[in-house]
């Protein structure tokens, strides 16, 4: 009961934030009815998927202060589990998704258990190393499609069990529900015991340990939860696109994008990942569509990189940090 109340009560937040959240909900609810463009709707769904990834990454990267650059492998593992179970044994989405999430979480657990013996940059580099190993493995592993990827068989009629719908509106609302659940979870998390423990470790690990917090265990738990978020996102990604390959779900670029996005929005704040996704995803897609024809590649990533450099040099708390500063001045 207490848990539910914590998750649903936003009463401790300032009025402005509550209004902002309400506007966000209204915007997402009305969006498919206002816009009819399929490209805009696709961008919106992308935005929601990245919100989910970012909210998850914010747990370990923001609240936990651990630079984990390996979200893509959790996304990929879950996505591959869902896709392969469906291709091989025709197992519906609702059964394979829990399995995919479990696989992603177990990977997080095993990796976190070993890697959290490391700190700071050792940890960050190790997560990159592990992601690159997985990426190589998935590209060269013929049993699961190798570099060609996996294509999901399409059913003749729209099918709820396999999450195959005729209209993107259904995907939009499903993704929106996932994001809402994630926001509610984060709202509970920041008031929970684990949330306080994690933040105390971030501000000073020695002091936290001297107060009896098992820092290693707390970090592992947080990393597992991050894995759950990524797993959910990966499972949804699979059924939405009906096609996955190691470059779209397993690639280091995805991990980088998630981290940069959260950092720009404001790591360690409730709304940071959403703000980051709100800026980066439309920028990425529309810029990509605009520049795509001219054959210039990489401008989008250059812009994020510049933003990240400026933000980490002048305002490490991201855009949310700037908002809070402005608010404090008034």
């Amino acid at each position, binding site marked *: 009961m207490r848990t539910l109340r914590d998750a649903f009560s936003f009463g401790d937040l300032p009025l402005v934030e509550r209004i902002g959240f309400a506007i966000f909900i209204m915007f997402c609810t009305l969006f498919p009815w206002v816009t009819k463009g399929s490209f805009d709707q696709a961008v919106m769904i992308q935005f929601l998927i990245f919100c989910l990834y970012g909210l998850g990454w914010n747990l370990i990267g923001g609240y936990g202060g651990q630079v984990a650059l390996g979200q893509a492998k959790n996304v990929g593992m879950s996505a591959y589990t869902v896709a392969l179970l469906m291709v091989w044994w025709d197992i519906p989405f609702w059964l394979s998704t829990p399995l995919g999430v479990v696989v992603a979480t177990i990977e997080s657990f095993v990796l976190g258990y070993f890697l959290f013996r490391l700190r700071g940059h050792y940890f960050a*580099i190790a997560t990159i190393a592990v992601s690159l190993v997985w990426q190589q493995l998935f590209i060269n592993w013929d049993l699961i499609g190798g570099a060609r990827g996996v294509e999901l068989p399409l059913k003749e009629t729209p099918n709820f069990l396999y999450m195959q719908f005729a209209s993107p509106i259904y995907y939009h609302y499903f993704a929106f529900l996932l994001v809402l659940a994630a926001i509610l979870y984060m709202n509970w998390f920041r008031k929970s015991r684990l949330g306080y423990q994690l933040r105390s470790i971030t501000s000073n690990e020695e002091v936290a340990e001297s107060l009896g917090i098992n820092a290693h265990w707390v970090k592992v738990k947080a990393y597992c939860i991050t894995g759950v978020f990524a797993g959910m996102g990966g499972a949804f990604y699979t059924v939405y696109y009906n096609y996955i390959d190691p470059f779209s779900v397993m690639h280091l670029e995805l991990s980088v994008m998630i981290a940069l996005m959260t950092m720009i929005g404001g790591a360690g704040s409730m709304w940071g990942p959403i703000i980051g996704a709100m800026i980066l995803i439309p920028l990425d897609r529309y810029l990509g569509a605009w520049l795509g024809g001219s054959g210039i*590649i990489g*401008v989008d990533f250059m812009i994020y990189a510049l933003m990240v450099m400026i933000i980490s040099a002048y305002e490490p708390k991201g855009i949310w940090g700037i908002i809070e500063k402005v608010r404090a001045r008034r």
Partner: protein
Amino acid sequence: MEMLVPTIISALLMGMLFALVALGLAIIFGVMNIVNFAHGEFLMVGMYTAFLTATVFSIEPLLTLPIAAMVGFLLGIASYYFLVRYLLKGPMLAQLLGTFGLMIFLRYLAMCIFGPDYKTLEQGVLIGKSIKWGSVVLSYPRLGTAVLSLIAFGIIYWLINRTRLGKALQATALDVEAASYMGIDTERMRGLAWGLGGATMGIAGALLTNFYYVFPTIGILFCMIAFATVALGGFGSIKGAFIAGLIMGLIIDLGGTYIGPHHKFALVYLTYFLVVVFRPQGLFGW
């Protein structure tokens, strides 16, 4: 089995280049305890500098070394004064993602200007030639690269251990405050460390251009090799960087020959992983 000796020799030659690559990272880390994710991208910039000067002015690739070193030096200094100086004030997360941002920026800048294609140099004193010695075939580019890497390594080692400037650099590495009380301009020393790191990468890049493809995303590979090498040798240790570079060369080439070329870089990451988990101080770390 008859492959073993040539592979080992060729691996050790390559290892000298890895040692040079690791040296740049070790200097920067040693002086200010910050990890440079853009390290591999400095190498990429060095490669493109060498490639462009060699092809546009059609001069001998080896003569582009000083130009690449200069470009690397300036790039390192600029990174320090425009970015890293501010990053050092922030938390760990900002430091890591800041240089990470620099890496992404340089990488996609190259992608934007040169496109994703693989390019190779076709003309040069060393290119395409080899020396045969019994069953051992040594390619000139690898041999020349190894010798020049060794010389560059030696010069930087001398610079750091035997000159006043190097002493000041080491003093800054040991204790910034104490060094500044002794009248050392620590800010300049830190800038210099980045310049030196950049210059080594410029040289390494120019050497690598002689026998390797030039493409924008090469950075991450060498960055990871450098991280693994430096972790193996011990962060901040120059002697460690050298020995670990040779070991890394052996791991990559022997792994590539006997396990399979697809997995040779996975071995690098595995090495890093094992070292940081089981011996975090590396072979020669403190």
